[in-house]
């Protein structure tokens, strides 16, 4: 097992280097002039202002010099300063990470749990109405544009029925709880404010569901396929012949064996979760990494764009690595190798 994990770990630095280079490269191929955004259109003709800005934001010198400067700074944990917020990108990302993490965790629970349950249900009722309904539901999750279904559900459940609170992490005119973890739900409990905790939780519900639904589609489809593969195995017939109840057969025998592919699916689909979070955050006015990425792209904020791509690549890489390690732990064939 250690050899397998070690081999995965060995390529991580190279992939990271590639990710950094690509993130840097993309943002330097920007066609329009970011200076216009920094100093304003009117000041563009003023060489003094322009040169000062170039120097300040590290835009002077050739591409090679900019790259080495960028890499050098990166090793000190410095991703540059955002043109838009005028704050270090690492600080911006750090401030917004808990919001995204809270959302993604909720979606992972809803999407992952729901996906496994739905996939197992569909497999056990193959070709029956339940199967068709479960498959349609999960297919809708992956065919619906996330930003659109977010809007539609917000309109129906919030504006018309009033069942869920509006967008945003906090109720209007309510201050955030004192910062310990950055998770508003946890921080509210920390401060002993149960009312705030409940309202933060309620505000999480819809965005987590929207994000989780998109994720659920992939999971349930693949879990269903993995379970169907197992259902034909001899040991399942044996288990049934012993007179085990069907639920017991599914839970203790089939699902346990279908667990390995499921684990892989869960881990590798985290990228999809990140993708969908960009849109969910935009719709639900969630001040996380996703909406930061959108604002950065719309204002040609180089350092922020590089920082966000780097974050996305690194997060994806980490998720895949954790999946590989878990897989190695869970699968005796690899564990013993």
């Amino acid at each position, binding site marked *: 097992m250690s050899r397998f994990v070690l081999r995965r770990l060995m390529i991580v630095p190279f*992939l990271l280097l*590639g*990710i950094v280079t*690509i*993130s840097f490269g*993309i*943002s330097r*191929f*920007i*066609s*329009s002039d970011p200076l216009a955004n920094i100093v304003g259109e009117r000041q563009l003709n003023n060489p003094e202002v322009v040169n000062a800005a170039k120097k300040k934001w590290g835009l002077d010198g050739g591409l090679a010099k900019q790259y080495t400067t960028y890499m050098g700074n990166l090793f000190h944990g410095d991703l540059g300063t955002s043109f838009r917020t005028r704050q270090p990108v690492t600080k911006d990302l750090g401030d917004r990470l808990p919001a995204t993490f809270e959302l993604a965790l909720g979606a992972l629970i809803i999407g992952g749990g729901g996906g496994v349950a739905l996939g197992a249900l569909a497999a056990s009722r193959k070709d029956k109405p339940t199967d068709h309904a479960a498959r349609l539901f999960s*297919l*809708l999750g*992956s*065919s*619906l*544009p*996330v*930003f*659109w*279904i977010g*809007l*539609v559900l*917000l*309109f129906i459940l919030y*504006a018309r029925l009033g069942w869920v609170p509006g967008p945003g992490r906090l109720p209007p005119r309510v201050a955030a709880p004192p910062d310990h973890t950055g998770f508003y739900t946890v921080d509210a409990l920390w401060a002993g404010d149960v009312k705030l905790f409940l309202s933060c939780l309620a505000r999480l519900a819809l965005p987590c569901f929207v994000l989780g639904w998109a994720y659920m589609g992939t999971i349930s489809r693949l879990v269903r*396929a993995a379970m169907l593969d197992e259902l034909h195995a001899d040991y399942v017939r044996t288990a049934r012949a012993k007179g085990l109840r069907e639920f017991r057969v599914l839970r203790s025998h089939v699902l346990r064996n279908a667990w390995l592919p499921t684990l892989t699916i869960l881990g590798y689909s985290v*990228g*999809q979760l*990140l*993708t969908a979070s*960009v*849109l969910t955050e*935009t*719709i639900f006015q969630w001040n996380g990494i996703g909406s930061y*990425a*959108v604002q*950065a*792209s*719309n204002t*040609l904020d180089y350092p922020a*764009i590089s920082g*966000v*791509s780097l974050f*996305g*690549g690194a*997060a*994806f*890489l980490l998720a895949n690595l954790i999946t590989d390690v878990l897989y190695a732990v869970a699968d005796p064939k690899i564990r013993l190798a």
Partner: protein
Amino acid sequence: MTASTAGARRRRAARRSLLRRPTVAFGAAVALFWLIVVISVGWWARYEPLSKAGARLTSPSHAHWMGTDALGRDVFTRVLYGARQSLPVSVAVIFFAVMIGTVLGSAAGFLGGFIDSVIMRLVDLTLAFPAIFLAMAIAAALGPGLRNAFLAMVIVWWPIYARLMRAQVLSIKGREHIEAAVSIGATRGRILRRHILPLSFTPALVNATMDLGQVVILTATLSFLGLGAKPPSPEWGAMITEGARFFYQWWVAVAPGLAILTVGLAFNFLGDGLRDALDVKAN
């Protein structure tokens, strides 16, 4: 001879039973509908997509099936014209992604060695990013516009096909008929062209059908985020952005979303059916 006619008969039967499946029939019907719309909408649409057709923000009625938007334009007409933006772009993205993926993937699989490593590391790197982050960054770097969104999507999408084609070429390379071709002295180019590639396209074809819906969604997504088509043009994602500003006039945003949904579902069903008909194992 008998084998080929039996094969042909089996294929015909598969095709017949394919269209009898309700999901596949639905997918085919929807795809056909949008194809007809793309070709002919200019001849029969009741209104113009870019000019005022009635009062502003009126709810759906007999005159305006999906209401009017903030500038009094007919939403239904705009959704129909939107197909002319989204669908050709998406088909082109898939086409170029398959082309580039085929060339690089089969080169990697067939030639092996150094070329294989270089191409596949490039694939790994591109796939190391969540697609949207990369597409957003590229689209932002190139500047907003549907053409640049198209480029960004091709860059994000080709590695999937390169990986697929490489795996396929590798598995076919080991078959007996290749050995036979080598033994009668066929050149490498001929072997790749005549003996390997014709057998390699099936998984890519199935994947491309399924991906088309996803690309339509991604196109709309980039436009929604302000990185694709720009507002006056009736692109589905851009229309949803406009609709989001008039939250309580729900029809402005709902109509283009339904269009995206039908396309996404249709190609998913078609791809599913195609996979079963061509007997490709899910990857």
